[in-house]
């Protein structure tokens, strides 16, 4: 085995050691908690909005062994074709690229405890990301409560097409904690927290901010320069969710997430969902999601003057602006009768569609002709489709 000293190789080695020690370190025991079901999913996914189309396949295979170990592997591809507003604003032409991601995970069941670990690797021509994670979940209090905690560590390598000299790295750590609780025979609730710390190159090397040619007169035009970001970011998110079973075999789901970080972004996500069944074979889901956020403290659509040094931060990423999004979604799942009990346990074909409207409160569309700082505010809609076939065995 060749061991290199890159962050990805170190992570892979550490993740592998953790998994092996997990799988070998504990003996068999009576079961209470449940491993994920054995299933395979073959999915086609598609995103279309804001001048970007992304589609590709994803295949997930999960299999358990000896009723105590479950392993999974996922292969995922994004084929991107982009003429987004960011690409157009930079004067570049439409580009295409692929991103390929591989994941492997393992879950080990020991009495009322499930230990999980996994490794993900993502590659594209100018970006490489590796992450390993470790989770523990424990059933307690008569199995009414499940407590879990987890840790992830990721290392990214950032490059820039057309600029061989550019190379930088990002280190990421996630700390998770969650509780799910059975409240009544028809109701469950969950509370989860996640802190993410990042250090390294956190901006996008292709993005620019803009500043006025004359600080006193915006009408004199503007020029652009590469964004200047802080090299650290720490965020906290808390999510509260609940599901309620309705007597006609349907379910109501609601969740709220609060988000805050040290870049002064504060976000609120609300989601409501309803699941309805028709007979044994059909499941229909509908949902509504509302998201809003404040802008990062170093975001502006049009700065008065250029950054003075590498601590004088400047960003014009629309993802850091004050914005909101609304999503409506629907999904249908059909259990194919002739597959039931033949070699496999059952099989379903599923179609899910989400329509998302993104509205920006202080990010302007510079492709429109207007005086600097007076262009119309930007907005766009996107459609997200997942078509997948699932079998359980």
């Amino acid at each position, binding site marked *: 085995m060749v061991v290199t000293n890159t962050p990805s190789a170190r992570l892979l080695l550490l993740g592998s050691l953790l998994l092996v020690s997990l799988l070998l370190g504990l003996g068999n025991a009576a079961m209470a908690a449940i491993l994920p079901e054995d299933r395979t999913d073959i999915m086609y*996914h598609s995103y279309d909005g804001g001048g970007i189309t992304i589609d590709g396949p994803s295949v997930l295979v999960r299999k358990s062994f000896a009723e105590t170990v479950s392993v999974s592997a996922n292969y995922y591809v994004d084929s991107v074709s982009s003429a987004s507003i960011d690409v157009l604003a930079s004067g570049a032409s439409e580009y295409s690229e692929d991103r390929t991601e591989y994941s492997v995970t393992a879950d080990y069941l020991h009495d009322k405890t499930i230990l999980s670990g996994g490794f993900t690797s993502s590659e594209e021509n100018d970006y490489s990301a590796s992450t390993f994670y470790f989770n523990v979940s424990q059933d307690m209090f008569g199995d009414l409560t499940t*407590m879990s905690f987890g840790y992830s560590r990721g290392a990214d390598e950032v490059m820039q097409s057309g600029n061989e000299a550019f190379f930088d790295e990002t280190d990421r750590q*996630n700390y998770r904690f969650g509780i799910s609780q059975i409240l009544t025979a028809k109701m*469950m609730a*969950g509370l989860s927290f996640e*802190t993410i710390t990042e250090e390294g190159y956190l901006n996008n090397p292709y993005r620019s901010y803009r500043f006025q040619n004359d600080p006193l007169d915006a009408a004199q035009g503007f020029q652009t320069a590469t964004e200047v970001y802080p090299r650290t970011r720490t965020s*906290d998110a808390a999510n509260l969710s609940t599901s309620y*079973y309705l007597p006609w075999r349907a379910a109501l789901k609601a969740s709220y*997430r609060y988000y805050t970080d040290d870049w002064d*972004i504060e976000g609120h996500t609300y989601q409501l969902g309803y699941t309805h069944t028709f007979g044994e074979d059909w499941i229909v889901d509908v949902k509504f999601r509302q998201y809003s956020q404040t802008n990062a403290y170093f975001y502006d659509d049009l700065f008065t003057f250029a950054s003075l040094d590498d601590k004088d931060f400047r960003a014009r990423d629309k993802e850091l602006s004050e914005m909101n999004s609304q999503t409506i979604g629907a999904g249908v799942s059909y259990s194919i009768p002739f597959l039931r009990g033949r070699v496999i346990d059952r099989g379903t074909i599923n179609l899910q569609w989400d329509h998302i409207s993104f509205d920006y409160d202080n990010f302007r569309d510079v492709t429109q002709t207007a005086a600097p700082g007076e262009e119309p505010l930007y907005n766009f809609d996107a459609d997200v489709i997942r078509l997948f076939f699932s079998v359980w065995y």
Partner: protein
Amino acid sequence: MHRYYKTILFVLLTVSGTGCAMKPIEPWVKPYERDNLADPIMSADRDPIANSYLHHVFQAREGARGAEGGGGGGCGCN
């Protein structure tokens, strides 16, 4: 801020570790009353492959991230 979480985690783990010696809490929803809760339609993550894809879509286009559920993994969103 994450140091604060680490302290909470440590306290909870310590409490859960010592919980073995305490008298078990009587579950107010008996195992045979949990059929409805075990129905896949109640699961927040019924189709992991589709859910993680949608999380990825939002994570790449919104400032907020985290506490979505699942094991996590690289974003790779440039």
